[in-house]
Every structure is written in structure tokens, then in C-alpha cells.
């Protein structure tokens, strides 16, 4: 499962860099460090699992590197561009074009069908309808949901929903996919299927996958294993 041959071999330039990254919150007048002085690099084709207990700063780290939150200090660079220098609109553009997100609770849009949920990021990119349709059909086939295209999220199982979320994250052909506890709401078998799917997509598309989890069953899928504790990262054993 964690053999090198199962990962992308086209290792490239660093895609994502975090330098001295930190996030603080003020709680009851005192400053709390959610993340402190984190240095981190991810290159093309990496499949990284970040492990840590609840409250260790996993989601905070993910929010910062996915450009949905701004750091208190340090910076995140995506392809050499610091997210701190970008406006809200530019950050939205960055997320739209280069980052795919997978959430713990799937976060599908309830009024849209599986196919429409997958199509949504392409609508943001204003792609023409024929291209959108072709890409959505191909992606749903890739995640094994071609027969579920017209189903609404409430008509899908947890595993199917997460596969829709994976398809939505990959439909724009992003360079970086960030998954926050992708198996947390799935049984172990379904969780394993989702992880295998992500691993296969990493291998085939050479996309950077960063999976944040406290589920030990996810760790064996890692090419790089990172531990996070009290807001600090420690690089583990390479796969």
C-alpha cells in the first residue's frame, strides 16, 4: 500500500512552501498559539498525511495553506507567490484555479445533483457547457459514480458523497488537493476505498495531496508522514 511505486514519480519543484508560519488567537485576553513557526514544503506529486490529535492545529494549518485564512505571522507561498500579498479576490482565484478541497463532512451543495456539484467549480471557471459536461462525465466515471450523476447528496451514501467531493476537488485539475479528515465520517471499508481513490489520482495526475487526519488507518497511504502536536510539525518516516 505504501510502496514507492504507488506514488507519482514526477517529483518537481516545491509547489507549496510555508515559512515561519504561525497563527494566534486571543482568548479571554491571552494569546493562544494554534500554530507556531512552521516550515513546510510540498513538491509536485507528494502524498502527505498530517497526523495529530484534536486541537493540535491540523485544521488551522490546512486553512492557512489552502488560502482560506491568513497567517498571524510567517507566510505561505504557492508556486513562489506569497498568499499574504494577495487580495480576497486573488485568493478566491487561487483556490479556484490551483487548489482542490475535500471536507470532513463532504460539504456538498444539497440542492445540486452529484454531477452538478462536480460541475460547480467549472462554472466558476466559466468553461463552456460541452467541455464541462465531458469533464464531469469523465470524472464521475473515474470515481465510479457515473450511475449516480443525477442523485442529490441526500440520496447518496457517505462514501459516495465523499467520492463526489473528491471528484469536485479534482475536476479543475488542481495542482494541490487538501483533505481535512476525509475518512472521519466513513466506515473503515469506505474510508479505505476513498483513500485508495485519492492515492490512485495522485499517482495518475501527479497532484499534491495533503491529507490532515487523526485516523491512524490513513497513515499507511502516506508517502510523507508528518506529525503535528501543539502547533508544531515533525516530519516522520518517508514512505
Amino acid at each position, binding site marked *: 500500500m505504501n510502496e514507492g511505486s504507488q506514488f507519482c514519480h514526477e517529483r518537481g519543484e516545491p509547489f507549496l512552501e510555508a515559512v515561519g508560519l504561525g497563527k494566534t488567537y486571543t482568548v479571554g485576553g491571552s494569546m493562544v498559539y494554534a500554530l507556531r513557526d512552521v516550515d513546510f514544503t510540498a513538491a509536485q506529486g507528494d502524498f502527505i498525511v498530517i497526523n495529530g490529535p484534536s486541537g493540535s492545529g491540523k485544521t488551522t494549518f490546512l486553512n492557512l495553506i489552502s488560502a482560506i*485564512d491568513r497567517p498571524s505571522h510567517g507566510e505561505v507561498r504557492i508556486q513562489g507567490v506569497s498568499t499574504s500579498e494577495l487580495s480576497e479576490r486573488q485568493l478566491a482565484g487561487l483556490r479556484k484555479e490551483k487548489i482542490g*478541497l475535500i471536507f470532513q463532512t463532504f*460539504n456538498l451543495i444539497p440542492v445540486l445533483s452529484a454531477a452538478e456539484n462536480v460541475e460547480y467549480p467549472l462554472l466558476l471557471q466559466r468553461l463552456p457547457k460541452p467541455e464541462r459536461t465531458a469533464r464531469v462525465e469523465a470524472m464521475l466515471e473515474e470515481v465510479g459514480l457515473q450511475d449516480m450523476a443525477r442523485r442529490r447528496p441526500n440520496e447518496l451514501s457517505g462514501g459516495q458523497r465523499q467520492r463526489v467531493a473528491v471528484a469536485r476537488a479534482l475536476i479543475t485539475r488542481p495542482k494541490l488537493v487538501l483533505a481535512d479528515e476525509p475518512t472521519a465520517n466513513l466506515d473503515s471499508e469506505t474510508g479505505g476505498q476513498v483513500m485508495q481513490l485519492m492515492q490512485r489520482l495522485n499517482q495518475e495526475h501527479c497532484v499534491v495531496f495533503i491529507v490532515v487526519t487523526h485516523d491512524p488507518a490513513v497513515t499507511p497511504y502516506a508517502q510523507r508522514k508528518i506529525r503535528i502536536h501543539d502547533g508544531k510539525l515533525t516530519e516522520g518516516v518517508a514512505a
Partner: protein
Amino acid sequence: MTWWIPLRSLVRNRRRTALSIAIVALGTAISFFVYGFLEDSRLQIQASTVSQFGNLQIASTDLWEDTAEGYEYLISPELEAQVRTLMDTRGSLTGITEQLQFPGLVAAGDETQVVRITAQVPENETLTSDGFVFEGRPLQSTDVAAVVMGRSLAERLNVGVGDVVTLTLTTVDGAYNASPLQIVGIYKFSSEQVELQTLFMPLTFAQLLLNTTGVDRLIVNLSSIAATGREVVAIQQQIDQAGLSLEARPWYDLSPIYQQLSGYFDILFGFLTLAVFILVFFIILQVLTLAFLERTREIGTIRALGTTRGEVFRQLIAESGWLAVLGSLTGILIGALLGLGFNAIGLEWQPPGTVEASVLSMQINGMTMLPPFLVGVVATLLSAIFPSIQTSRLRVVDALRVE
């Protein structure tokens, strides 16, 4: 982004959407019903006023401004002929006739009444009182010392068809004159004041009594009431170019009562619209605020996927736009159905100061549908702006944390 995502979002909470549509529809329906009713009343008054005054009248400015001493304002037969020649070029003109109005005192037995005599050409097709005569007959071309009197005046003088009354007046030279007049017909009108003060008699006999060959105004009828304003301008230009010292005035300038009533209707509809607007605005504001609040996590998700604040704002406004259009259309439909029912009942109402009941009805057409429709749409859209801005400006991380 697309038109269907906002529409699809509306169906997620059917009860709330139905409630919102019902509120917008109710406000629009009330507004439409009242506006349609007021417009119908306005049209009835317009038709009544035009039947009284013609579409427009041409007279000396001295008559209009009441600045002449004596009868200097009268239009001579030569001047009238010039005007008629000019009018021949107007395609929308359907008729032109002369009129001469003057004050007098009418007496029968011990009763007297100050009146205003309207002398007109009998049996003309432009403007006559013929349609109002309900007892006896209208004036005829062969009539000489004949008069058609209002019902209220006849009752006050205690006279009827065939009776003779005496008219006393001052000629254009300032001499007193008097003549017996036989009542050939009694008319009724919507205004008691008109019935009491206005008498109709043949123009030629009135000119004889006044010792003149002139008339004080020319009354022009047009093919439509709506054409009046445009025609007045065009006719006045022709009059000015011909160097005639005359002025054309439209029916709405000649009837101060119409202007007052029309203004009153505008104020009434304005207040009602404001009330409906405020009602719809605040209720929809509340409903949308709650609806958007419930979708905080979803908004956070689409923002995380790369939707900009502006796109979120536009999507929420588009949802409200659908709500506004669907609600307003439903309101118009309900209002139209109510109006059709109301018109079918044919309720009658006698306005104060009138002697005739009129049928209450509602105008149902595109022109009466548009303002209430716009009120519904604008109120809903405005109420959506604040919650849409607030929702679109949520911090993505905070929105994603909401359960």
C-alpha cells in the same frame, strides 16, 4: 453564474419560499387591486370630464385668464373660420363645435337662481348635453327660446318639461335683456352643482339675446383622450404660426376638480404603496436573513471553492430576484382574479356631491399591473441587499466552522 442554481436554492426550504412568495404576492395583489380601482375611477372621471369639456378648447387668453372687461374675448365668425381652416389638417380631430357661455338669472314664480348658460349648436355631434337628458328631449335645430335644465334646478324651481321660466341677462353692450324660455328637457349629471347651475340653450338664440355674432370658445374632440396633450401642443403651434390671438387648453387644465381628484388618487396610491413596500421590505428582510444564516456553512464551502464575494452576493440577489418575480407575478394573478370577481359583482357607489351612483370597478391591464409589480420586485430586491452583503462578507473559515 447560472440562472438555475439560485432558482434551485429556492426550493430547498419550500415552506419558507412559499411564505416569502405569499408575502410578496399579498402586498402586490393589494397594491394592484387598489391601483386598478383608482385608475378605473380616474378613467371614469376623465371620460366624464371630456364629455363635459371636449378634448380641448380654443379661446382668447383673456377668457382663460378672466382679464377681459365685458365680452371682448368673443371669437368673431371670421376668426372662427380661420381656426376651422387650420383644424382641417389635424388627422386625429373628430369634431369641432362652438359654444357661448354667459351668466344669467333664471326665475320661475318666486324662485330665482343664478345660472351659467351654455349655448351650443343643437344636434351637433361633437359636444352636446343630449346624452344626459332623461326627461323631455334634447335641443333641436328648430328650437328657438328653448332650454334644457338640470334635474336639481328643476326641483328647486318646481318646474318641469313644458313649463316656462324667465332668463334675465346682460347683453354684450351692457344692456339688460330678458326672455321667456320653454323647458324642453331635463338632464341629470353626476354633479349636483352642475345640475343646479348649468342650463343649455340653442346658440343662435343665445347670440340674439346677447346681441352678438361671436362665440367664446371652440370645442375640439379627438379620436382618443390620450392624444390630447400632443394635439394641444401641435394645434397651439399652428395657431401661433397663423398669428391668431387664441390659446388651446386641454380638458385636464379646464377641470380643476379632475386635477384635484387625480392628485388625491396619486397621494392615496403613494401612501398605500409605501405601506405595502415597508411591510414587504421588513418581512422579507427577516425571512432572507434567517434563510441565509442557515446556509452559512454552504456559503463558506462555495467561497472555499473559489467563489468570490461578488459572485456570492450576485447569487443571493438572483435568488431574491426569482422570489421577487414569482411573488409579484403571483400577486398580479391574485389581484387580477380579485378584480374580475369585483367587476362581476358590479357594486354601486354614490360619491359625495353627486346625484348618480357609479359602478365600482377595477382596471385590469398592463398599465395597471406594471406599477404594483415593480413595487413588489423592488421591495423584495431592496430587502435582500443587506443580508446578501452580510452573508457574502462572511470569513470563509468562520463560515465553515458553523454546524
